[in-house]
């Protein structure tokens, strides 16, 4: 089923694309990109409504398991003592903060290239979630740094690039809302998200490219992770829990954004009838 791209107005009312959307639709079908099957907001609401309770329940379960394991049943590190427990939230929040930005950049690209009707909403709703996870990463890292490095903050490459990630998220939120025309705001936000994606490899490789207090990657060396299984397992459980939490929050917020658009369309239709 080759459904043409749905413009924002039709997205809001949940109806099929009207005839004037033909140029966009023609381009999408010419490229044989069938993403639009999943771009229908009504279908997204139905599917996400079925998935959301399961994802949220799995996130809550794994979060409980990971917290108990990390806080009570995992051993203290022989060098870092009990402060190593901060890692169980610091590292997963850092991973999710970066994964969230990747999601935002990919969604922005598909919004710009294919006019994917839900892509703009996904990109916009990624920003506050990413900002929160990045804030968690920064605060926990700071509270971990004080007892271990003797300082809350250093202006080295890793910490500064993650702070930049935080400001990219905040800047995206501000930029999207800075235009009278929402379409221009969405477009500007998408361009910012793509330009800011340059920061992701900088964060990843900052510990290798510049000298820093921050320790290098210890988990992603899959052949031989430089981390004991007693500490690695609760970390992986927490990472999965945070990822599911991110997915649940994103689905919830995109659903809310679709409802908000639909409400605006209904109110506009009512105002048009009155006039």
């Amino acid at each position, binding site marked *: 089923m080759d459904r043409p791209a749905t413009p924002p107005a039709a997205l809001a009312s949940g109806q099929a694309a009207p005839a004037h959307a033909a140029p966009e639709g023609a381009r999408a079908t010419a490229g044989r990109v069938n993403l639009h099957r999943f771009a229908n907001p009504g279908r997204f609401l139905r599917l996400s409504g079925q998935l959301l309770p399961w994802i949220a329940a799995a996130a809550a379960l794994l979060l409980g398991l990971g917290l108990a394991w990390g806080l009570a049943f995992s051993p203290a590190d022989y060098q870092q003592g009990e402060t190593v427990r901060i890692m169980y939230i610091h590292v997963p929040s850092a991973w999710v903060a970066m994964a969230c930005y990747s999601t935002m950049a990919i969604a922005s690209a598909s919004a710009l290239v294919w006019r994917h009707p839900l892509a703009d909403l996904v990109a916009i709703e990624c920003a506050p979630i990413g900002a929160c*996870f990045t804030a968690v990463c920064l605060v926990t890292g700071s509270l971990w740094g004080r007892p271990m490095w003797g300082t809350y903050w250093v202006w080295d490459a890793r910490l500064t690039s993650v702070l930049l990630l935080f400001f990219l998220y905040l800047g995206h939120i501000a930029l999207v809302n800075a235009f009278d025309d929402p379409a221009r705001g969405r477009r500007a936000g998408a361009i910012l998200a793509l330009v800011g994606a340059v920061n992701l490899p900088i964060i990843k490789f900052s510990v290798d490219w510049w000298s820093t207090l921050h320790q290098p990657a210890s988990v992603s060396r899959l052949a031989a992770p430089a981390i004991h299984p007693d500490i690695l397992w609760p970390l992986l459980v927490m990472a999965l829990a945070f990822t599911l939490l991110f997915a649940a929050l994103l689905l919830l917020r995109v659903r809310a954004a679709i409802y908000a658009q*639909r409400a605006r369309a209904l109110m506009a239709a009512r105002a048009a009838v009155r006039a």
Partner: protein
Amino acid sequence: MTGLSSWIAMGGHAPFVWGSYGVSALILGALAIVSWRGHRAARALVARLEAEGARRRPAPGANAAASTAAPERAA
């Protein structure tokens, strides 16, 4: 109780460990609550607008209560 109190002490780093978990719970908990309430409010608004729209344009053969609702409000 020494087991519990030594666990709470976190090897003398209690403010840093519990502070990290507390701030994280606060930030992510607030995000979850705000998102959940926003979703609930937006969905309720759509349901209300759709119900009002249905009342305003009663289908032929709709019951009396529904068809008199709009004139009463107008009066």
